[in-house]
């Protein structure tokens, strides 16, 4: 079975909610839809207090190039535009909507019927994806329309669908595949059309045999250009660069874009969202979220509207257990610990993980014993022991030399460290600083080149 070449770790899978069907989460009396739901610039709210909205009404416009639309997930009246806490407790603007009934925009096709015929052309698909507010559903929430318009120098060859779900505990992608295999395949075809390619792979880790079988059956029934690729169990296989390496054996160049290998990677949830947007005209207003944990009474997969309080979802899964030490938005490896449960569902929230006190506490860090376990674990071939120390001591030139900018922040180093050193904590400090230096340098070089060019032209004009 295939897997990526370098590094990787094997955390316990703990897929407690694997068998649970998708339940529709109840719509509360009031939702708060945050305006910062994508990577890049937050969206701008375009509604005001008292406005009537339906399910699917646009309430937020992109705040920049790297940004997306936000739609109302409920019907009702806008109560206020205020701030809420995001998963890390930081304040972000949000639209509060008082729920009244469940009235959808007429343009949305709410029937269960599967629409197979793709009528839109390449550009129309990309425009539709933008209009419907689709972002990467794996958790990074990169606006999909931007990813579908690669630089003109790129030569796309295939689409790789990320259905790996290598994060322990999470089962949202798994349950989505079991529930909507054909829709996903059509979504993949739409992505192929948007990229102008005729080959696609769906990478699934081997711990989901039922999903592999079902997807294979669906593909065999009428999607010959799609190949289902079972992958050996290893974290972080769901990383874009690792997945490309595992599926087609190519390597993303250091500092380059993944599209340089000819592969466009999209999450399986994104493929489904693209299907719904393009074929059914349905904006991204709900997603599947896993609520799980060893102490949770009923680990579940919910289909939850955006803006639903996280506390409500935890309550629906049996409530917050007494000895909870940590609640994490996302998975245990890359998720973010929440300071409290006062936040709301967003597009990138794939799971809510409740951890018991003794599981959650970090053990005390000891001195580095130079065992190099982190070096073996790093899927990018970096030396996390040095990188973390360089970041801690603000030795940015050295950190740059050791390619800190290649770090994908997967946490394999910290997971494997026998001295419990907070390696990733420090690397996360140094990485943006080095990236800032690189960006500044590129900008300076460009300004210099422009100035020289202008001077040359001026001289030529004389």
């Amino acid at each position: 079975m295939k897997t990526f070449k370098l590094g990787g770790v094997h955390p316990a899978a703990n897929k407690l909610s694997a068998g649970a069907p998708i339940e529709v989460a109840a719509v509360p009396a009031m939702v708060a839809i945050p305006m910062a739901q994508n990577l890049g610039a937050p969206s701008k709210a375009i509604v005001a207090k008292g406005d009537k909205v339906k399910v699917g009404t646009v309430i937020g416009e992109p705040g920049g190039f790297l940004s997306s639309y936000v739609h109302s997930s409920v019907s009702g009246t806008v109560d206020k535009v205020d701030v809420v806490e995001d998963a890390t407790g930081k304040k972000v603007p949000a639209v509060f909507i008082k729920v009244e009934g469940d009235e959808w925009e007429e343009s949305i096709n709410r029937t269960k019927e599967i629409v197979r015929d793709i009528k839109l052309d390449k550009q129309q698909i990309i425009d539709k994806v933008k209009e419907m507010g689709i972002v990467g559903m794996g958790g990074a929430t990169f606006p999909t329309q931007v990813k579908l318009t690669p630089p003109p120098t790129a030569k796309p060859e295939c689409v790789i669908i990320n259905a790996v779900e290598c994060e322990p505990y999470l089962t949202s992608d798994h349950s989505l595949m079991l529930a909507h295999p054909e829709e996903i395949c059509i979504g993949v075809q739409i992505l192929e059309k948007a990229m102008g390619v005729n080959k696609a792979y769906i990478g699934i880790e081997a711990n989901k045999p039922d999903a592999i079988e079902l997807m294979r059956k669906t593909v065999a029934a009428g999607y010959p250009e799609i190949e289902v690729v079972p992958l050996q169990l290893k974290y972080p296989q769901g990383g874009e660069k690792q997945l490309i390496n595992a599926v087609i054996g190519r390597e993303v160049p250091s500092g380059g874009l993944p599209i340089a290998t000819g592969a466009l990677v999209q999450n399986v949830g994104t493929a489904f969202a693209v299907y719904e947007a393009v074929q059914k005209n349905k904006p991204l207003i709900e997603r599947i979220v896993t609520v799980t944990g060893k102490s949770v009474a009923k680990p579940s997969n919910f289909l939850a509207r955006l803006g639903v309080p996280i506390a409500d979802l935890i309550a629906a899964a049996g409530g917050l257990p007494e000895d909870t030490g940590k609640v994490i938005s996302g998975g245990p490896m890359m998720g973010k610990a929440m300071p409290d449960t006062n936040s709301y569902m967003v597009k990138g929230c794939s799971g809510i993980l409740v951890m018991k006190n003794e599981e959650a506490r970090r053990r005390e860090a000891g001195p580095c014993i130079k065992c190099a376990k982190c070096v073996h674990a790093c899927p990018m071939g970096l030396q996390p022991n040095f990188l973390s120390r360089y970041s801690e001591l603000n030795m940015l030139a050295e950190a740059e030399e050791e390619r800190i900018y290649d770090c994908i922040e997967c946490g394999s180093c910290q997971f494997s460290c026998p001295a419990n050193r907070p390696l990733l904590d420090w690397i996360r400090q140094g990485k943006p600083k080095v990236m800032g230096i690189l960006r500044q340098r590129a900008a300076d070089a460009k300004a210099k080149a422009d100035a020289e060019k202008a001077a040359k032209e001026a001289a030529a004009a004389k």
Partner: protein
Amino acid sequence: MNVILIALIALGAIGLIGSLLLYLVAKQFYVYEDPRVGQVEELLPGANCGGCGFPGCHGMADACVKAKDATNSLGTLFCPVGGNDVMANVASTLGLEAGSAEPKLAVVRCNGNICARPKVAVFDGAKSCAVAAATFSGETGCAFGCVGLGDCVKSCQFDAIHMNVETGLPEVDETKCVACGACAKACPKFVIEIRKKSSMKSPTPKRVWVSCVNKDKGAVARKACASACIGCGKCQKVCKFEAITVENNVAFIDNEKCKACGMCVSECPTGAIHATEPVMIVVEKLKAKKAADAAKAKEEAAKKAAEAQAAPAAEAVPSDAKAEPTEVKAEPSAKKTAE
């Protein structure tokens, strides 16, 4: 004998060639440096702290000489470590009149101690404010205040800032702080500000500052921290020198305009405005006077109320019995003014 001679001659020749090479290289790649730069650098303290805004004392010396050549003055160049004495020496070396800058120091603008600002979460990652601030909003309900993991303490080269274990907040040692600004740069929440040591000429420093940077709305800030600035603007109204501005729900005192009268300190309902000892003496007096005024007002109000009550109801009920409830009634309004 011969061997020794050959060795001597060979080594001598190598030495000669080497020195010739060094001489030629030194000649060829000679960089002229103003000799005054060296002189000025010798006068500077040599701490290389960067407090002047230049990378080390050599950079500062270079800047001083350049400033003298360009504008014939030292402008705003100032060595916070050496202070006025060193700058006077530098000025006289360069043949300039000595200017003077007012001494400054680092001021911690957060007073959310453990009692005022209870913890709502626990951070168990790397022990660094920068890491904690990048990870989440903070261990307390206040997302703006001091993180308390001591990045400022680590950044200080002069041993002038320390964590107070009782309050969980850093404290600046006035005698050691040179206002180099390293702690202000190290703080990820921008809680530390470099301010004038004293707003007024006084043997003991007189300064007043708002010890809070919380930009949340009043009620939210108050909920997170009992001693937060709630942006009520009372200090702004009471200030006679227009030194106080309230922006983004937090007050700021301009230390150029502040006369350290202490009015704002006595007015602040949450105690977010702090002042040094000599100002606090005045503030205590102001507060005592205010309390006395309030008590007097209360008494008068009670008296008036009693009289008003007593006049029409005199026949029916004895005035003593009526006076009691009115006094209770008058209390809330009196309390309000006292606050």
